[in-house]
């Protein structure tokens, strides 16, 4: 069944953590473009967690693809990295101890959320970069438990993009634990002009096991 991006985003309840699993493709680029357009048109606050310049990387790719991405309305929480892109940028000072890092993040997120009247859409880019800094099992759990505390936080609907093979190259409990704290899991399989989306998990059981098609060929037609 073909769905539009607004239809898909309506499925996400406030307080959710949606894990979107994809393999090497332009999924991050199109996700950024589609979410930016959706949030601007609907007046939904748009928060981007930019871990280690991943937003910059995605924007360069968008440019080369000829995708125009307007981020003037976005709030960027910049964790590590040097390239400041997007607007209303707040720096979150990186710290190798996940507890300190998450405390810094919490302050920045609360600051950004203060002005929001509706739950934001929170796109998280480059979370795997953080996982590379995790030194041992205990550090990983400190990090995971910090994220878990946002489950049910009605200020946001979070979308975590996870590169499947990259996550799978880490110890296998990492992937399973991330899936476990997620309230929704969408597994994407891309084809030349779009992606098939399989709903592996959803708080709404009616959607579990369903497959949707998101075709992005039209994005280019709109621009010309």
């Amino acid at each position, binding site marked *: 069944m073909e769905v539009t991006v607004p239809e898909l985003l309506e499925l996400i309840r406030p*307080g959710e953590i949606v894990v979107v699993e994809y393999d090497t493709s332009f999924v991050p680029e199109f996700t950024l473009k589609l979410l930016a357009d959706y949030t601007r048109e609907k007046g939904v606050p748009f928060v981007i967690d930019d871990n280690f310049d991943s937003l910059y990387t995605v924007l360069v790719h968008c440019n080369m693809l000829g995708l125009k991405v307007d981020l003037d309305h976005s709030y960027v929480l910049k964790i590590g990295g040097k390239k400041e892109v997007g607007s209303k940028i707040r720096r979150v000072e990186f710290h190798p101890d996940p507890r300190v890092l998450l405390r810094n993040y919490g302050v920045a997120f609360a600051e950004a959320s203060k002005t929001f009247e509706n739950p934001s859409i929170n796109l998280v880019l480059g979370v795997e970069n953080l996982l590379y800094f995790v030194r041992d099992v205990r550090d990983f759990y400190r990090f995971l438990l910090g994220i878990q505390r946002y489950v*049910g936080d009605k200020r946001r609907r979070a979308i975590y993009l996870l590169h499947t093979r990259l996550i799978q190259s880490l*110890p296998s409990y990492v992937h399973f634990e991330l899936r476990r704290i997620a309230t929704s899991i969408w597994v994407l399989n891309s084809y030349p002009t779009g992606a098939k989306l399989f709903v*592996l*998990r959803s708080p709404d*059981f009616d959607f*579990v096991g369903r497959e949707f098609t998101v075709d992005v060929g039209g994005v280019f037609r709109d621009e010309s």
Partner: protein
Amino acid sequence: MKAEHFASRDDILSMFATLDFGGVMLIENYSIVGSELFLHALLNYTYEHGLPVLVEDIFDAFAGYVRHFDVMNLSPPLEHVGVLKIGGVDDIGNVVDKIQFEADPALYLQKKERAIKTAMGDDRHVYIVTGFERLLGFQHDAKDVYAIASHLREILGDETRMTFYLIEGNVIRGFPINTLPLLEGVATSAMELHDHGDSVLLRFRKSILTLLEGRDEVFIRPTDVVGWW
């Protein structure tokens, strides 16, 4: 049993009714929502039967399930449930005691037994352990795992307690030592939860029930479970 037959509320209630005090039940979850559904059913069952519950919440595992209940619009009763925190940062539910996380199982077991005694005295109760796999993730030595198995042998037959270990099997299997076979050997019953199309498959690895009824698989529809309470 044919695949098209799904478990009813009565089936699940009678399954719980076969469990005895003194038993140790191992529930290994490999499915996506099996843990939440199992907890939802068990919390409702214990509430309806007036059984006090103590949850051992290792590293916020229980807090995570409760947060999921919230997003799923489920609200199992929690007023009969005490929470014993082992490490973690997220105090959800009626927290009766907090124990600092100890990787050394001897210390952890000693401290938690003392806390259980203080909280429950000699009252009969249902004891649910969540996040046990996270504790096991810190064990690098087979000897330490053996200490935990020995402890299970000690609580086996303790008539004041009905113990459930709700374990995320996929997580355990990602750790260097697979401790499940050792624990399964000690437990009075062991079951697994798997995804099976739209439903959850409950497979008994060892159970008195299978001896009585000659079957070892039950299919459960998630939409049914949330409608039962």
